[in-house]
């Protein structure tokens, strides 16, 4: 089936019909003037359309900026909540450790020291004073031991590092670490008490897990997208 050529149709039409071209100069001028008027009008409406589109684009951009800002604030709030949760987790572990120390000291006092005292001291009053003395000596020991353990837990980077890794997993989930995500990661590292180098090491290890060892900032986006994509064929 052949395509219909408009130029062939036009030739045929011109053959079939006597030419009605009006070559009178004044008619030509008037025709051209009308054409110029149409072109001017078209240009004006095009300019109005473009202005309207620009205005809508500007408003849409502003709405996006606002949404972005709100999102950033929400993420910071979430980040803060996460830090508080981390802190609460550390405190819970410290409390458990303190209780364990207290229990150990109680057992030592009750079943090792006190029976010995009861054997060697017959005077009840002196025995009670001795027991109080030993108990008083154990209290600072318990406090010191608990603080050492608590301090060890608080300074332990394991929990904070794990929290930072969780953030990295979220950031890399869609395959792209945006500028905002990068800023959040940096502020989170600081809040979690991780040095820049420690944060970089955690990220490098995570990238190694993803099979992206040595990915640079420039090629990160593309390679991460490929690596974390669940099923590129699907």
């Amino acid at each position, binding site marked *: *089936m*052949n*395509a*219909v*050529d*408009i*130029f062939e*149709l*036009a030739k*045929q*039409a*011109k053959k*079939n*019909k006597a030419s*009605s*071209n*009006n070559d009178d100069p004044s008619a030509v001028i008037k*025709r*051209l003037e*009308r*054409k110029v*008027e*149409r*072109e*001017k*009008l*078209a*240009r004006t*409406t*095009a300019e109005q*359309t*473009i202005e309207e*589109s620009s205005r809508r684009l500007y408003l849409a951009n502003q709405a996006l900026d606002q949404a972005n800002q709100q999102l950033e604030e929400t993420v910071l709030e979430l980040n803060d909540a996460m830090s508080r949760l981390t802190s609460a987790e550390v405190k819970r572990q410290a409390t458990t450790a303190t209780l364990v120390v207290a229990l150990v000291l109680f057992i030592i006092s009750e079943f090792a020291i006190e029976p010995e005292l009861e054997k060697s001291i017959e005077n009840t009053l002196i025995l009670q004073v001795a027991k109080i003395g030993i108990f008083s000596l154990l209290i600072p020991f318990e406090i010191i031991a608990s603080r050492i353990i608590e301090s060890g837990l608080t300074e332990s980077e394991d929990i904070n590092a794990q929290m930072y890794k969780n953030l990295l997993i979220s950031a890399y989930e869609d395959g792209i670490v945006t500028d905002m995500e990068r800023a959040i990661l940096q502020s989170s590292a600081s809040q979690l008490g991780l040095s820049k180098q420690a944060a970089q090491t955690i990220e490098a290890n995570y990238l190694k897990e993803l099979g992206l060892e040595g990915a640079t900032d420039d090629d990160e986006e593309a390679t991460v997208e490929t690596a974390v994509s669940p099923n590129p064929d699907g």
Partner: protein
Amino acid sequence: MKGIVFREFIDMVEASFGDDMVDTIIGACELESGGAYSAVGTYDHTELVQLVVALSGQTDIEVPALVEAFGTYLFGRFLELFPVFFSHETSFEFLNSIHDVVHVEVLKLYPDAGLPSFESTISDDKKTLHFEYHSSRHFADLAVGLMKGAFAHWGEDVSIDIEDRTTDENQVVMFTCTLND
């Protein structure tokens, strides 16, 4: 309807029949736009219908033939303006991609464009394309012209069987295109 279609129609009439014909048909119609079209504007599609009818009256060429010829001309223009959409190996592959690829891109540029919808399937032996056109604007002849432009571009000899399934609201036409050996 997007202004680019009107602009192309006016350019086609000017190139084939002369600028006096453009002036004549615009003068013969009652156009809300005054016949001043810009590619970025949007205009009532009935203005195009009026212009085609006026052109038919001036040239004694049937309206369907003019619309079809415009479709073929439009295909050539789209090929020049948007070559990225024409990288397919066959016309059937191209036509099959219009609704899901080309129209998606068109809507990115012109979100308010009222596009016809197409449902198409290619047979397993890739020799038959079923192409169903749905539109409230009744420009199936334009679709025929565009398809013929595509077949000519890929140098294929294709027969088109047309079955009208028009409803009260929409023009629905099933085109069965068969590739001739």
